[in-house]
């Protein structure tokens, strides 16, 4: 029963995008639902809903590591909480991206793969500036993940950010979802691109 639901198209070995979604209350997030829905339809994308799969945080390390190994692009989609990832995504990094697997001596499983972060924020774009009330840019807030990619020998892709996600109307969200779909499509190998 803990076998992971693989709702996306089955990806061939070592190819495609592993889209890891972490949102503890997806039912309340219009933006993340819209984004996930847009990306899920792409062939070559393996969709992984962390909070749905591990509601009790009991992450299955082997399964997760196998999924990482099997994909070229690791995409993390999440809402920015306290300038960081939701707790389960952090737990997932702690438990799965292990010393000897992802980094350190013998830890070469992720070498050469690409790390792509898609993030939604509550505040508008203006807040993420030296003069905005959040005082730092998104690039600065995402530095820990960027360094994680670096330490693991991964390529850091330019993050995809949706600001003011909660206040966007349906049309705006739809446009963002389209943009997201195109962006993920561009990460896929040419032959599976839509």
């Amino acid at each position, binding site marked *: *029963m*803990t*076998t992971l639901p693989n709702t996306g198209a089955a990806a061939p070995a070592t190819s495609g995008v592993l889209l890891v979604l972490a949102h503890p209350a997806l039912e309340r997030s219009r933006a993340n639902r819209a984004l996930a829905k847009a990306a899920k339809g792409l062939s070559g994308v393996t969709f992984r809903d962390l909070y749905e799969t591990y509601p*009790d*945080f*009991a*992450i*299955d*390390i*082997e399964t997760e590591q196998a999924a990482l190994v099997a994909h070229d692009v690791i995409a993390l989609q999440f809402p920015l909480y306290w300038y960081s990832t939701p707790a389960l995504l952090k737990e997932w990094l*702690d*438990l799965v991206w*292990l*010393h*000897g697997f992802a980094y*350190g*001596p013998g830890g070469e499983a992720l070498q050469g793969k690409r790390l792509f972060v898609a993030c939604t924020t509550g505040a508008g774009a203006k807040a993420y500036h030296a003069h905005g009330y959040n005082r730092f840019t998104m690039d600065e807030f995402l530095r820990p993940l960027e360094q994680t990619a670096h330490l693991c020998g991964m390529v850091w892709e330019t993050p995809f950010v949706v600001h003011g996600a909660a206040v966007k109307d349906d049309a705006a969200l739809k446009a963002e979802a389209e943009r997201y779909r195109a962006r993920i499509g561009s990460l896929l190998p040419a032959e599976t691109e839509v």
Partner: protein
Amino acid sequence: MDSFLIQTVFYLGAAVISVPIAKRLGLGSVLGYLIAGVLIGPHALSLVGAEGDVMKFAEFGVVILLFLIGLEVQPSTLWEMRRTIFGFGGAQVVVTALAVAGVAVVLGLPWQTALAVGLVLAMSSTAIVLQTLDEKGLRQGPVGRAAFGVLLLQDLAVIPLFALLPLLATVAPTTAGEAGGHGASLMTHLPIWAQIASVFAAVAAVVGGGRYLVRPLFRFIAESRLREIFTAAALLIVVGVASLMQMVGLSPALGAFLAGVVLAESEFRRELETDIEPFRGLLLGLFFITVGAGVDLPLIAHKPLTLLGLVLGLMTLKFLVMLGLARLFGAPMRGAAAVATALAQGGEFAFVLLTFTVGAGVIGAPLAALLTAAVAVSMALTPLAMMLYERIAAALDAAVPDVTPDTGAFDEGEPDIIIAGFGRFGQITGRLLTANGFRSTVLDSDIEQIDLLRRFGRRVHYGDATRMDLLRAAGIERARMLIVALDDREKTVELVETARKAFPDLVILARAWDRRHAYDLLANGADAVERETFESALSLGTTALQKLGFRAHRAHRAASFFRRHDRRSFEELRPMWGQEEAYILASRDAAKTMERLLAADLSRLRPGDAGGAWDTASLEQELRERAEKEGAE
């Protein structure tokens, strides 16, 4: 000896054949025994005679029954029941006797005879009522307690009746005081004060003996470690008390009940229960068979209409009186109807009392024969009457789903979920769902449970959830989900199977007894199952790990890991379900995996554990080397 053995064969044979059939047909065991009795009785197959000996032996079943009930009743409970016993019970005997007597007078009997008939027929059958209520799961709780209170008072009332009935004689007594059974005590020749004194002495002996003698005796026997002697001692107590009571003119059943109450607080209570229980079942069965055998078929065939009128009249009258009184004493309609239905028959005391009254010249022999037949038939009809009551209750629920006006806000509109079975398991699931705003309809066959739920405005139907008509009435056609939480393995499978066939799209979740039951349920169409003890056992295990020194999170992780492994092996073994050998082999293999995992747990090298994360040893090593290198530079 031969004839004894052969008789035993007939009695046991009849029981073994007819009771399971009756049960299968949903008629209950009591009716099964009664039918068996009628069949082998002197008026049908005539395999056994209407032996008084067997009857007396069998009546001992009632004595044991009352002893066992006494064991469940703490003295304080008995005290709390005083209003039920004396108020409700007393009112039942008086009002019923007067009502029956009134009808008898109207039918042309002299008032003395009419009153005697009324008093005799006011009695109900302890054995039939309690056994039937037990089978319906009603004996514990208000309905059972009310019925029991009445029955207890009737037992008490028998004593003065033996004194009073001769006073109603209309012809010269033929054999007064010699009518066997309860009246014929050794004390009848004593002056009245001596009789009363002996009664008190006997009760004091039972209470005192139970308090101060039985415990040391049992402790002594227990040390001998001879199981059968313990059983013998238990039987000795019951038989001894019963004979003592009979000697002073009290009902043996009443005495046994008293002894039970006295021993209810002793540490040997459970053992007494288990030891005596089989005797109760067998002897009660025998008792029901003899009642069945006693049904006078020729008389019934001779005067069918008179008897039919008598039986229906008697049961209706008793039902109405009881219903009225129960309502008066504050019982809810449904509970009152249940008690009234249960107590509407004549009782075994009537047989004894009728014989006695004939001897005392109060009631004529032909009338007594007619009444005996009527009482026997009414006893036989009681299980049927209870079934009828259940059907009507269920039909009422079906016709008017929201009977109670105080139906709360939750239950407006169609239910999302039907929960079959609202016991220990269903309650928790149901409460969780309701707390989260889902509307549920509950099906349960426990009346008290239902009353309680209704008071909280829940939509509840009474009845056997395996019945499709009831499920439909509960709204299963529009529900999204059926949760089967019955505590009966077979019924759970049966319900899942029939519901799946009737509603292919319905989500069905079921409570499983164990792994095999779980596979069985899945094979029969359940969408998901939960082994009823799995999560709680795991939870207790987690607590144990903590108490053994694990930090809480480590214990929690260990349990999570265990759960995942177990569920995985559950899925892996599923295809083999049905192939016995493969299953056993594979599950042995799974056990080995578990063993390996457990061993790995100990060595902390388990790959699946999160031990690899958080301050990893290998990382520490690397950092140390790096620090050394930096220091060297």
